[in-house]
């Protein structure tokens, strides 16, 4: 049995899954200030029906904790030590002004000038978390490791290095990831302890996992180290829920239509599409891998206002629907009147629509207009995403010449307002649609179902005789004939060890991309450069198409 928990802004959901079935589910209000209360209430909701505390093999949680902490701007001070070397002036690229450290590593990973901490660097307060990030540290982490040691000797608090964040290029992204990680270490550490405590109080001893922005999970001990990865996990949870509930084999668009927003994702070969580079946190680009998602401010609770040209939807939320005792007309009121929803007072919904009516217009006509306007807005964003996706730069001739537009064949809807809106949207697109049972707890299902993910990057330069796995800060000498296949074997081994180390069952790894090109010196091939990225095969533990929990 698997336990999934989603601590959202409004609700805390819990589900228990057995043999690919949602065995029981509970939805309780999130208790801000003391999250444990809401969490315990949701746990009780699922446990009293199943009595399954000791049969749980895994507990997984999706949380907006880091998202909220960033949004409120209450982050502790973090010192950034950056080693940019020659190039772009990065002094304004980070959330906090950096201390610039002399030194340089070039694109081949050759340490041209050793990094040297300025003499005043030791003056900052001991105990303050620090970030150490050097350009091309993923090609050679030496300078970051040396500075980390020096800073610790000066009494710095926790030190987060750029190369431990990601093995991919992007100095500013790695630095920002390290910054948001350093800034949320204590916060997340405290929160995970609370969750563990809550689980214990309900006699749940299963290992705790935390959802990541890429739709995978990581064990609590890693989550406490890579806290920035837990940013933006709400939409990722719902996408993994869709994977578990529908597992669309065709090209699909999925819509999570919640209270205030609709999150849109694209699917191909049963997998959600990824964003090209990484998530932005608070406007700063980071190395956090994330799904290719768009968010439209249209949801069941979006309040409606009459304008000269029609009806405006959202973006504000004033409260729940009038049919549910709220203060202002909402999308949900319109659905209720159109009998696309059946949860609330139909007369109040009629009154809500009437308040928006032009002279002589029936409330039904208003509801119809509301529905069409909402569908228009979402369809427009879907079309925009398709255009944008077609315009994403690629760097191979073949990829330009053979490019095809993304053409969805199915619309999937989850979330509270899906039932009301998805049929209309699918109709506009001329596509069939699917609204799975348990669509209301898709996030918690996604958390329960998501497999752990780890991405590893290997850089081999046989001309220099070097082979490095930056995240492990692990280098080794290799010979001229080192091949891509050997590289993949090495990386698979590392992924297997990492999986075991974090208590994850290894069920295979896949290559995300690989490239090999020769190094030419004076007209001769003096070696080759190999870049490989591999990951634990992502996905869900089960897919439960058509199996509901009712």
């Amino acid at each position, binding site marked *: 049995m698997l336990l999934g928990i989603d601590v959202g802004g409004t609700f805390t959901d819990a589900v228990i899954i057995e043999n690919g079935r949602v065995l029981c589910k509970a939805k309780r209000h999130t208790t801000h200030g003391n999250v444990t209360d809401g969490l315990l209430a949701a746990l009780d909701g699922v446990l009293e029906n199943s009595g399954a505390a000791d049969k749980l093999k895994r507990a997984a949680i999706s949380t907006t904790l880091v998202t909220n902490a960033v949004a409120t701007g209450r982050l502790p001070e973090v010192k950034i030590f950056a080693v940019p070397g*020659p*190039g772009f002036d990065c002094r304004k690229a980070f959330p906090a002004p950096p201390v610039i450290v002399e030194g340089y590593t070039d*694109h081949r990973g050759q340490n041209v000038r050793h990094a040297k901490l300025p003499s005043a660097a030791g003056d900052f307060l001991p105990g303050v978390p620090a970030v150490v990030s050097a350009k091309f540290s993923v090609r050679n982490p030496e300078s970051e490791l040396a500075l980390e040691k020096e800073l610790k000797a000066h009494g710095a608090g926790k030190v987060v290095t750029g190369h431990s964040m990601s093995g991919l*290029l*992007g100095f500013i992204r790695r630095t920002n990831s390290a910054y948001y990680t350093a800034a949320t270490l204590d916060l997340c550490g405290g929160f995970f302890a609370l969750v563990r405590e809550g689980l214990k109080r309900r006699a749940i001893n299963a290992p705790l996992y935390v959802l990541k922005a890429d739709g995978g999970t990581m064990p609590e001990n890693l989550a406490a180290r890579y806290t920035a990865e837990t940013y933006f996990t709400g939409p990722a949870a719902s996408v993994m829920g869709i994977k578990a509930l529908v597992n669309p084999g065709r090209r699909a668009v999925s819509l999570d239509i919640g209270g205030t927003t609709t999150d849109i994702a694209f699917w191909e070969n049963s997998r959600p599409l990824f964003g090209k580079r990484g998530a932005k946190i608070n406007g700063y680009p980071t190395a956090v891998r994330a799904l290719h998602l768009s968010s439209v401010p249209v949801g069941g609770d979006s309040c409606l206002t009459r304008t000269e040209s029609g009806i405006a939807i959202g973006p504000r939320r004033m409260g729940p629907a009038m049919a549910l005792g709220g203060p202002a007309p909402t999308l949900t009121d319109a659905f209720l009147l159109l009998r696309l929803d059946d949860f609330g007072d139909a007369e109040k919904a009629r009154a809500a629509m009437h308040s928006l009516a032009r002279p002589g217009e029936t409330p039904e006509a208003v509801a119809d207009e509301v529905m069409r306007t909402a569908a228009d807005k979402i369809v427009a964003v879907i079309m925009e995403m398709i255009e944008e996706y077609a315009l994403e*730069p690629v760097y191979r*001739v073949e990829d*330009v010449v053979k490019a095809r537009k993304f053409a969805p064949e199915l619309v999937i809807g989850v979330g509270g307002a899906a039932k009301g809106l998805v049929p209309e949207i699918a109709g506009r697109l001329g596509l069939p649609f699917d609204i799975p049972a348990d669509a209301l707890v898709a996030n918690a299902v996604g958390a329960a179902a998501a497999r752990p993910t780890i991405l590893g990057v290997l850089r081999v330069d046989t001309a220099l005789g070097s082979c490095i796995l930056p995240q492990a800060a692990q280098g080794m000498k290799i010979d001229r004939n080192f091949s891509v296949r050997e590289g993949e074997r090495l990386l698979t081994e590392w992924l297997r060890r990492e999986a075991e180390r974090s208590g994850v069952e290894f069920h295979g790894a896949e290559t995300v991309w690989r490239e090999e*090109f020769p190094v030419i010196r004076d007209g001769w091939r003096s070696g080759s450069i190999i870049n490989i990225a591999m990951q634990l095969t992502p996905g869900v533990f089960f897919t439960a198409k058509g199996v509901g929990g009712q």
Partner: protein
Amino acid sequence: MTAPLGLVFFPAVDWMISETHPERQERLIYTYDQIVEEGLLDLAEIREYKPRVAARRDIERTHIVVPDLKDIVTDAHLVSAGGTLTAADAVMKREVKRAFALVRPPGHHAMRVAHGIRGFCTVNIEAIMIDYLRKTYNAGRIAVVDTDVHHGDGTQEIFYHDPDTLFISFHQDGHTLYPGSGFMEEAGSPYAFGANINLPLLPETGDRGVHLLFDELIRPILDDFQPDILINSAGQDNHYTDMLASMQVTAQGYARLADKLKADIAVLEGGYSIEAALPYVNTGIVLAMAGLDYSHVIEPDQRELRAEGNHTTARVAQLIRDGRALWSARGKLKAEKIAKAGSSWTRKKPIYYDTDGIREMQTETAFYCPKCPGYLTIDSSAWGSYFGEQSAFIAVVWAASCPDCGKKAYDAVLRAKKQGGHNYFFVQDKTKDLLERI
């Protein structure tokens, strides 16, 4: 919002001439690494564009490929040429202030008639862009400043009869470097005299010499010409580490030049020091064109950089004197040349395709008309390793040619066909935007 810079970045990592050829698959990979590691593609000032695929019509607006486009033009060329068109559109539609087509394969050695690859170039991507700008946006005066170390002989050849396209190329003296041309006497055909300016520099010229030449000669000429669109053929092989040439320009030298030039569109050309120069030169040019601080872009290894000698500076001073004299006297000289030419002007050109080992002999005749720019005929024969021998007779009808001249051009080709002696016959009719096979 109009971003300061549109960047069409296309390293074509799956295209090469051969594994050890300078124009090989990883030529821009180190540059890609640098640009991504620096985070340039994430900056709000830079908008990245995906190149489009150029159409047959886009290529044939500029080139006559013998016997046919598909015989030598690969998908890579269509994407690289398409990249310049994407850059042009981004600027002309005001989505961005300027654009840089950081694409390969390059093009500035490709001439109007193409039998194969020369100087690593198959089709001339700037020329294709210029013809596209004229056709699509009715662009008037266009200036090209070619900052590649090699003479841009293809671009010169294609616009040699066009008084509205000012071509300025500085390069290492042709006595010491491929393609061997690019002297000041090559100043344009009579009708376009003075619109082609070659500035051959001595080997070892560096930042100081190049900037002196720019400030004292190129800048004033550009100010005088007042182009509607300014293009930079942004070759980077003047760099002090480039193995194909012997110059001493640095990344700072190139970035400052891009900053002063303020080209509307830059297009990458050569540059083969793929590890020690390109990552830094491109970072510098991108930052400069985006209006960002580039002063920290310095090669980590400057051991090969040497101070400039007096002889290179003396050559620069000479070029400034001669260039000023040519520019100020161009009106008078042009009138004299036209008077001397009479109704037509002919040049015979041997053309060598070093990459493919093809030899071509061309006779090109510009026919003049009192009512219009006239028309052009080209008699081309080539001997190549893989096709044996082939020849073509071609006429070019200019966009502003009068109907009489148009008819004369077609008649000339029909006459040649009747006489026999050539394998292929074409009319490149710019009034119809068509390349017709006769």
